[in-house]
């Protein structure tokens, strides 16, 4: 496979994740998010995990999260009501870093 522009999802598929199926480490309040005009999360998440669904609502999948914390820092309207690191052993596991 040679070098080319890759979608975020494809890049994430190269990483090693241990997904916590029982507990989401980031939780949004959909109502706050739907009122948020800025929606910085759509741009600043390096994994592009924040998306607009067909109703214009934010949808978010914590499974590919790189745990960088950018969304937490940039969420000015506080739609992110919970941001924690995943429980021990869960989440991203960098093999190179």
């Amino acid at each position, binding site marked *: *496979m*040679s*070098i*080319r*522009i*890759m979608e*975020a999802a494809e*890049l*994430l598929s*190269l*990483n090693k994740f*241990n997904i916590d199926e029982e507990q989401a480490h980031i939780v949004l309040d959909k109502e706050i998010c739907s009122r948020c005009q*800025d929606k*910085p999360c*759509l*741009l*600043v*998440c*390096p*994994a*592009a995990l924040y998306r607009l669904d067909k109703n214009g609502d934010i949808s978010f999948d914590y499974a590919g999260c*790189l*745990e*960088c*914390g*950018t969304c*937490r*820092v*940039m969420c000015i309207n506080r739609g992110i009501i919970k941001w*924690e*690191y*995943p*429980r*021990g*052993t869960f*989440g*991203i*596991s*960098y*093999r*190179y*870093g």
Partner: protein
Amino acid sequence: MGEENQFDAIVVGAGPAGLACSYLLAKAGKAVLVIERGDAPGAKNVTGGRIYSYALNLLDKDLVDDVAWERKVSHEEIMIINGKRSITMDYHDPSLTEGDESTQSYTILRAVFDQWMADKAEEMGAMVVCGIRVDDMIQREGKVVGVIAGEDEMYAEIVIAADGVNSLMAQKAGLIPDIKKETVGVGVKEVIDLPAKTIEERFKLSQNEGSARMILGCTQGIHGGGFLYTNRESISLGCVFMPQEIVQHGIQIHDIFQELKMHPAIYRLIQDGETVEYSAHLVSEAGFQGMPARLYKEGLLLVGDSAGLVINTGYSIRGMDLALLSGIAAARAILGETDLSQIGPAYLAELEKICLLPTMRLSVGYNQLLEIPRIYSNYPQLAIGVMQRLYQVDGQIPQNFKKQVMEAINESGLTVWQMLKDGLKGVRSI
């Protein structure tokens, strides 16, 4: 150790800062517990990156001989990009790979390096436990006396918060407020596998040599820049952005970075390679001004990224060496001070002595310089514009040099007045 204390010290986070501290404490016979939330040391950590060897030398001279490094940096490169054109300056000093171990720098990968450091700390007797997330601290009468992880409570005479840039420990202790968005950059990186021989040919390296490259003008005008480091059999290519400006420009981080990968001057360095990992991490960008006002409270010390210890001068970035220094300073304070309430002030004194705080103070000017927005668009365009005119021979009567430069200045959207002001600011700030 007090009666209820299970440990002399509990270190939260198995990165360079926490492990340097643990290494020295354990070496001095202290009972040290290191708690890491990743399933191995380094599993949650990302670097550009390179580490400066003087700090490892200071930690323990014996360590320097078998550091888990990738390549020794002997090529320091600065690249300026505008459109498809680019300028690369390559400063080569072959002596940097031989002789004096205290002035070298190594490219590293954190999953490898942090594991190596953890092994060394364990050899000294530290206990490194992975896969456990510390949820909170136990505080009594304003003093930190231990940590809580799930249903477990663990007590120690001192707790060291080495939990990184997004330090929830420091926040819970009330030492720092929530991170301000102006003070952090977000870095993204791909690790691209390539055979060692290919890397050596493309970067003109001998067997152990490596190169470190900073890239300016690759961020679509956004405050930030690219980086490229050669590892033994891979290349670390990445970009750092101020997230606030990402929003103002309305561009997605991932898209700008993918474009950098395909830039003709970058692509030829990585072509035929295979991306094996995509990572992202926050990095403190505010230098001395981004540091917490207080680096300790009774029973708790902040080290490494938790203490905001990063210096970005534009031509080099330092973080891991500063992390090591702070870990060393913390250990020295703990070992040298018998009065528990005085460890915090002793830590500050050690940070001064080890030259860390004086170095951080000097970073203030660089940050002012890097705040000039024109550095990220107009100036790269100007540099490329001058080169383009200088080397273009088309059979027409050439214009004199001064006129060509003026043309390039106009084209870049700068004015001589603005350049004078920026130049003055530059000279004053550094």
